[in-house]
């Protein structure tokens, strides 16, 4: 999921300068997991903006209704058309994708041209949890994990080196850039050692194929993205498994 944190109030207020009547919209996807777009977060931001003298209308999106998915969030935009028409700006508490999908839908499908402003900063595609999360993938379009014992050097190495480590490994095998982070290439070495694959360590990995990351990347589904009954039942089965299955070992 995409981790995100709320922007400083000062920055948000800067974007809202001269804009009195605002909408605060949430996101029921990743932003809800990271508590930067759930109903509580929407209420808190709305309250803070009210204290700053803004006239706020809230559009919280329930759990699983993501701002970035038009089929779902479009329902809530359409439902609130009147408010959206009468407001000066829409503040979206989601990653940049949600912000842009909302702006695009309002412009193109609803004919409502308003400033659509990000309330959050997305900080990466992370994994792990429930407390400690780590950026693990940058969706580069050409996965290198098969060459590096399952640790992504483009993401986990501060320099994104395909052939590391660099000469700056710090005491305790920490990163040159940030001594709180592990050196990815030492991790790769240790994992290759465990897998008895150290011969792969000294082989030369070709430079990454950045041609696979021609932005913006477009992606087409064979069938439309759709929420159907089967998906709902699947989700319920998943929740049952999480509730009654063996418990994973979690960080303190």
């Amino acid at each position, binding site marked *: 999921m995409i981790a995100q944190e709320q922007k400083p109030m000062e920055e948000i207020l800067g974007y809202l300068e001269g804009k009195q009547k605002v909408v605060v919209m949430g996101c029921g996807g990743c932003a809800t997991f990271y508590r930067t777009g759930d109903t509580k977060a929407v209420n808190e931001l709305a309250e803070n903006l009210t204290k700053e003298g803004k006239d706020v209308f809230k559009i919280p999106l329930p759990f699983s209704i993501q701002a970035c998915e038009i089929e779902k969030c479009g329902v809530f935009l359409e439902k609130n058309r009147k408010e959206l028409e009468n407001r000066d700006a829409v503040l979206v508490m989601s990653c940049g994708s949600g912000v842009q999908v909302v702006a695009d839908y309002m412009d193109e499908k609803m004919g409502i041209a308003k400033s659509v402003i990000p309330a959050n900063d997305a900080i990466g595609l992370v994994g792990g949890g429930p407390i400690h999360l780590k950026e693990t993938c940058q969706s580069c379009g050409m996965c290198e994990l098969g060459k590096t014992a399952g640790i992504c050097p483009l993401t986990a190495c501060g320099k*994104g080196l395909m052939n590391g*480590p660099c*000469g*700056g*490994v*710090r005491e305790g095998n*920490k990163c040159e850039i940030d001594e709180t982070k592990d050196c990815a290439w030492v991790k790769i*070495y240790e994992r290759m050692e465990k897998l008895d694959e150290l011969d792969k360590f*000294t082989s*030369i990995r070709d430079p990454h194929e950045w041609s696979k990351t021609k932005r913006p990347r477009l992606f087409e589904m064979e069938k439309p993205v759709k929420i159907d009954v089967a998906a709902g039942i699947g989700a319920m089965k998943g929740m049952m498994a999480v509730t009654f299955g063996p418990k994973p070992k979690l960080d303190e």
Partner: protein
Amino acid sequence: MGDEVYSDLMRELKEGEYVFTGELEPEKAGDVNEPIEMARELVGMVVACNVTDNPQSFAYVNSMAASYLIQKETGMECVYQLRCSDRNRMALLSDVLGAGALGLKNILALAGDHVSLGDTPDAKPVFDLDSTTLIKLIRSMVDDGKDLGGNEIHNPPKLHVGGAAAPGAAHLKAEVGKVKRKINAGVEYLQTQVVYYTDVLDKFFDELGKVDVPILVGIFPARTFGQADFFDKYVAGVDVPPDYLEAMRATKAIKDKEKKKEEVDRVNIEFFTGFLEHLKGTPAAGCHMMAVGYPRIIPPLKKLME
């Protein structure tokens, strides 16, 4: 590795001479007058001088331009340091072609410090290639007249490529694995990061085993306490011995400039006497004296190696 020799540095290394190299640092200035002056003093003392490329990610005069001007003005052969931090593979390729066209004969291929450590921390770090793939690119350009994509190069550049090694790296086995990878990529010589401890050097050579690539060991006789302190505090993988650091700190109190110079020289000569004596017994092919702005220390240190 090709048999051709394009530079004096490579000629001395191939002939098995004990090699001494120096280091010049272009500054944040619109000229390279100071490194040119330093190079003039170093002529005859060292076979070649590295010209640093944005060291510690502080943005200074372009290293290729500085290398060219120093070489042209003083005749000092330059080792053009080239970092992957600031250039993508296209820019690196065109810089290597440019270096060849300007008559530069040696490149030291480096990954480079991360931009966040320097004076332009908001810059986008590049690292499109790493030191290994830059070495591979240069060898492919020089030996085969081709770039990484197989595109042909008309009149390929004639130059040599060196690489770095960090004997003091926290994880020596991973570091040595990387050094071996650079050797597989065709690096023609290696230069180590600064080393102060003989046991660090010995462990590195032991772990590396016998290799066919000549290795220059980096030493850093500091001109001031500040230089030594900076290395100790900010350069990863380099520990400056506390005794040496304290002796350098004590020189700060000397008011008379000449006496201070004499004492700094004495501290360096005293410390490096033992180190250089030890160095003679290692497989090192020479010594890279990273004495930036401190050319007067090189002759007495060289004398210790005789």
